């Protein structure tokens, strides 16, 4: 079963349109949602959760068109964790125990200890990183089958980010568990994601298996005269400076003998965004 199916999802605000987004997240996978600020990542997550209402299209979450019916099975961490500022971690746990049918109090307590979060300190006095960790602890403690994470690793130090990525890997080890994660920190997504979706100005530029993307595209760094020898359709983006040329190319279209190096997701994202601009 697909964890998420977005078909022709449309939402218009003043000055922005999420334009007919089609996205499918298969069960058991992690999908990274990449895009510039204002590209529509948070809008997409909010539409999935019905925090904002769609203008058109359809959203299916864990097989249900009514997300309200499956919210018990969806763990959410938003860019600002959003927990009540006057509560401490222990009180949050008590509130969530009454919120979720499958609340795992022991698992929550273990995560609080693992994350080194103080039980009695108020949420408002937490650092940004601590807030996100508490959000993660809640999202991972109620037997969710799908995690929706919107910029959830921002504000975390590299060690904490790495720990979160490990948790996500562990999470998807369980059969049928899936994750949709949006982030500016593309290197994080590259580490854990099975699929990468690029959104640019409200439009989906591509959605592809990460390994296939890395296989399909290459970076050519050469003199401008050499770049001119590559057929134009093969070049997706190029940058020519007095010091040389750099181009994103389709591997299959590059003439044999051309030296082309591997591309990482961050380079791919930056170059494709520039091309689209």
């Amino acid at each position, binding site marked *: 079963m697909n964890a998420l199916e977005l078909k022709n999802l449309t939402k218009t605000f003043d000055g922005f349109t999420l334009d007919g987004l089609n996205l499918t997240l298969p069960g058991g996978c992690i999908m990274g949602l990449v895009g510039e600020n204002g590209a529509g990542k948070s809008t997409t997550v909010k539409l999935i959760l019905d*925090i904002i209402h769609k203008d058109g299209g359809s959203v299916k979450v864990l097989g249900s068109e009514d997300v309200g019916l499956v919210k018990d099975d969806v763990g*959410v961490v938003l860019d600002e964790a959003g*927990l009540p500022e006057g509560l401490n971690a222990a009180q949050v746990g008590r*509130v969530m125990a009454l919120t979720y049918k499958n609340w795992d109090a022991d698992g929550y307590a273990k995560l609080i200890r693992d994350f080194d979060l103080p039980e009695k300190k108020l949420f408002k006095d937490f650092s940004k990183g601590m807030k996100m960790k508490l959000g993660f602890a809640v999202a991972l403690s109620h037997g969710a089958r799908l995690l929706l994470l919107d910029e959830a690793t921002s504000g975390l130090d590299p060690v904490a980010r790495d720990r979160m990525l490990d948790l996500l890997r562990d999470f998807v080890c369980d059969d049928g568990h899936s994750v949709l994660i949006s982030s500016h920190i593309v290197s994080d997504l590259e580490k854990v994601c099975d699929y990468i979706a690029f959104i640019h100005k409200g439009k989906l530029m591509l959605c592809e298996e990460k390994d296939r993307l890395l296989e399909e595209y290459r970076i050519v760094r050469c003199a401008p005269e050499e770049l001119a020898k590559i057929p134009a359709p093969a070049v997706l983006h190029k940058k020519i400076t007095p010091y040389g040329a750099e181009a994103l190319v389709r591997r299959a279209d590059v003439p044999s003998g051309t030296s082309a190096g591997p591309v990482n997701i961050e380079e791919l994202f930056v170059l494709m965004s520039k091309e689209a601009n």
Partner: protein
Amino acid sequence: MKALLLKDWYMAVKYCKAYLVIVAVFAAVAMSGANFMYGFYACIMAGMVPVTLLSYDERSKWTVYSCALPYTRAQLVSVKYIVGGLAQLAVIILLTAIQCVRSGFSGGFDFGVLLEYMSLQIFMSCLVCSVNLPFVFKYGVEKGRAWYYIALVLVFGVAGALAGIFVLSDTSRHGILGAFALVPAIAGIVIYALSWRLSIRFYEKREM
């Protein structure tokens, strides 16, 4: 719903202690017999508790996050009306007890007058929440703030007018509503129920 009530209880204990002090001061002044209006002020303060809780919710982005949790929008609205109702009930019970003690001391206990006071206090309490909450749920606390102050001035004006009528007619001894003593309470509760329903409708359409 239990989860939301527990969360608001924690928040109220943390952030609404000042209201408790203000209500106690108003209630004490009302007991001294200085001015009947102070009793109404205590009711108004109780009615402001839900808006205060909502402003904290909005500041911490709970209003957004809570929509991603397994609560319905109707539950998110209803909890504020329930909290408001409980706060108002507590204040009215306190004021009624004070009124009983006061009239006991002065030797002029009159059940009709007591009923009338209670009825008007219920009306005032309900009015505060009823005029404020739908706008706050529709526009948010920040955008709805202008309306919030207008509504407060309106409610304080009504409180002043009612108190004036009572002072002028010396109702510490004789009620003025007679057989219609319960009409303000019933009107207040009806307005509260309509406001509750309107807030749910607004909140279900609102985009966070």
